[in-house]
């Protein structure tokens, strides 16, 4: 890229900023969980950096919370050119109205071109209200993004029916363009530890939240999801060896436990948990078959599963013909390693 092209891009950015009467730029609103940045915030910054480089714009991060000023340096390292911080006890816990007040005042002044949130409960609550308040467009849960440079419009790919196909959507006439990104869909950016900056503070006015949290919902348990609608299933077969490890894996992943006929015969699961065309057919996002040989009845019942991981010691096991990811190993030895890898977070 030659310097004249960069000059042109920056001139376009300044032209846009002059037109709308603000600083423009690509903004990322950070999600802070337990005092740390959520991974999706860094992924959003990676996307913001890519978009901003093509637009010839600056990247800004916004941090809201209590005692979070130190996190600003992480935003700089992930690619932010500027960081605004609203560090106040009034923002200690996420509540819609105080957060909305800070952000809507900020965006009214800065007139961003693009604003990115994580598709998290906080992002999903804030982004639509800000989009409505500012007259912006909102594309939710995108998993890919490209740029229509002629109109400076972001084109987002939105998975339909859980990723069967993607709709490409854009908001060419609306500014700001709000995006929420699916956690894990975009790569985390390179962290440049030499980058540093001085964040600027945002004013926080006292605003009373209109929704009051009264405490833990005592005695409430969500209704059990039928196996056929479960999004994540860990199923055991005769070769699973240690069923407690299967349970532990399901617990770590937040999955439902199921099994084949063999697991039922072994007394590990109830009849309603048998995955089989004569029992329950399933269509989860992820199906993990632990020690399941994979007979015709079982394999037909998991045909609609989006992603199948099979763990079995026999390389010729029929389950490997339908699985996406095949692990040829003894489950009793492999599962403790998998649990360790999932808990440690290292890949």
């Amino acid at each position, binding site marked *: 890229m030659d310097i004249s092209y960069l000059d042109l891009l920056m001139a376009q950015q300044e032209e846009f900023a002059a037109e709308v009467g603000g600083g423009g730029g690509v903004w990322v609103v950070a999600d802070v969980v337990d005092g740390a940045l959520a991974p999706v915030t860094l992924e959003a910054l990676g996307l913001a950096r890519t978009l901003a480089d093509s637009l010839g714009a600056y990247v800004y991060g916004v941090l809201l919370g209590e005692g979070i000023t130190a996190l600003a340096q992480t935003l700089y390292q992930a690619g932010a050119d500027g960081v605004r911080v609203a560090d106040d006890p009034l923002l200690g816990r996420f509540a*819609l109205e105080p957060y909305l007040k800070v952000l809507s005042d900020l965006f009214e002044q800065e007139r961003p071109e693009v604003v990115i949130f994580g598709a998290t*409960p906080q992002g*999903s*609550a804030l982004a*639509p*209200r800000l989009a*409505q*308040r500012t007259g912006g*467009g*909102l*594309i*939710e*849960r995108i998993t*890919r993004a490209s740029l229509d440079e002629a109109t400076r419009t972001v084109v987002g*790919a*939105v998975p*339909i*029916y859980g*990723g*069967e*196909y*993607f709709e*490409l959507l*854009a908001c*060419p*006439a609306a500014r700001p363009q709000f995006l929420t990104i699916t*956690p*894990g869909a975009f790569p985390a950016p390179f962290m440049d530890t030499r980058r540093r900056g001085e964040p600027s503070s945002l004013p926080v006015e006292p605003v009373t939240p*209109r*929704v009051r*949290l*009264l*405490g*833990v*919902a005592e005695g*409430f348990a*969500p*209704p059990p999801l039928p196996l056929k609608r479960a999004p994540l299933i860990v199923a055991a077969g005769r070769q699973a060896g240690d069923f407690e490890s299967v349970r532990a894996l399901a617990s770590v*992943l937040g999955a439902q436990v199921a099994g084949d006929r063999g697991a039922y015969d072994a007394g590990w699961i109830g009849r309603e948990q048998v995955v089989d065309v004569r029992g329950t057919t399933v269509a989860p996002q992820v199906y993990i078959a632990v020690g399941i040989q994979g007979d015709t009845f079982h394999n037909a019942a998991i045909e609609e599963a989006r*992603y199948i*991981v099979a763990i079995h010691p026999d390389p010729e096991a029929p389950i*490997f*013909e*339908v*699985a*996406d*990811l*095949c*692990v*040829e*190993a003894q489950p009793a*030895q*492999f599962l403790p*390693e*998998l649990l*360790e*890898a*999932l808990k440690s977070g*290292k*890949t």
Partner: protein
Amino acid sequence: MRAIVVLGRVLDPAGIVVNRRAGRIFVNREEYILPPADRCALEAAMRIKDATGCEVIALPRALFPDDDVLRQALAIGADRAIYLSGRGPDCADDAFMASVLAAAIRQLGGADLVLTGATTLDTGWTQLGPRLAEILDWPQILDAWQVEVQDSMTVVQAVVPADGGYALAEADLPALVTIAAGALKLRYPNGVRLINVYRGIGAVAEALERWEWQTLLEERPTPVLERRGQEFPPERERGVRVSGSAAEMARAVAGALRQRLGR
């Protein structure tokens, strides 16, 4: 007290086949269903009606070509349903519909509570409810699993996910509450109401009104979204074998699972 329930419809995914290689969607059975979250919102409205005797009015989530979802709501027990007719813009998005729905609620003389599904089945989007709450300047409670209106009929309480568990949240009425998919099981329709509403007989059929959406608004809202086409993921590659030591294979599987689950 008046509760509005906003209901959508979606093409039953069981009736479609996506051919990734051809880059085409084949609709084998064109059947539209009430999305799971909207079913729960309708049940929540019915439970509030059972408890308080409030009036329940069903409104459509988009400008649908037919009024089937509204007839379903009447068969279940809604008191009134308003079908919004008239040709809309080609891409009537949630920003457009939020304006139309807010105008319809004003035309009805206001409401105390709006219930709708937290997410749509096809896109998983959540923005219609919060956009509507913003226009109405109401508080919003999102992703509720249980909803109750307190005896005084001035406060709504809901069970919502919080801090890895569930918390009780409350807001003064009027308020908007979105209901999580799977939260409640929709009751069966009353047989007589079901027959009458589809045959156009009696009071239940008369409870279905038709309003021209253009008459509700002085200024036509403009949709902000534009469709730029479709993309299809590459064909599924099955049978990828993981190799290495147990620890290496475990790390590879954990990485694949994390990527797949977005964690």
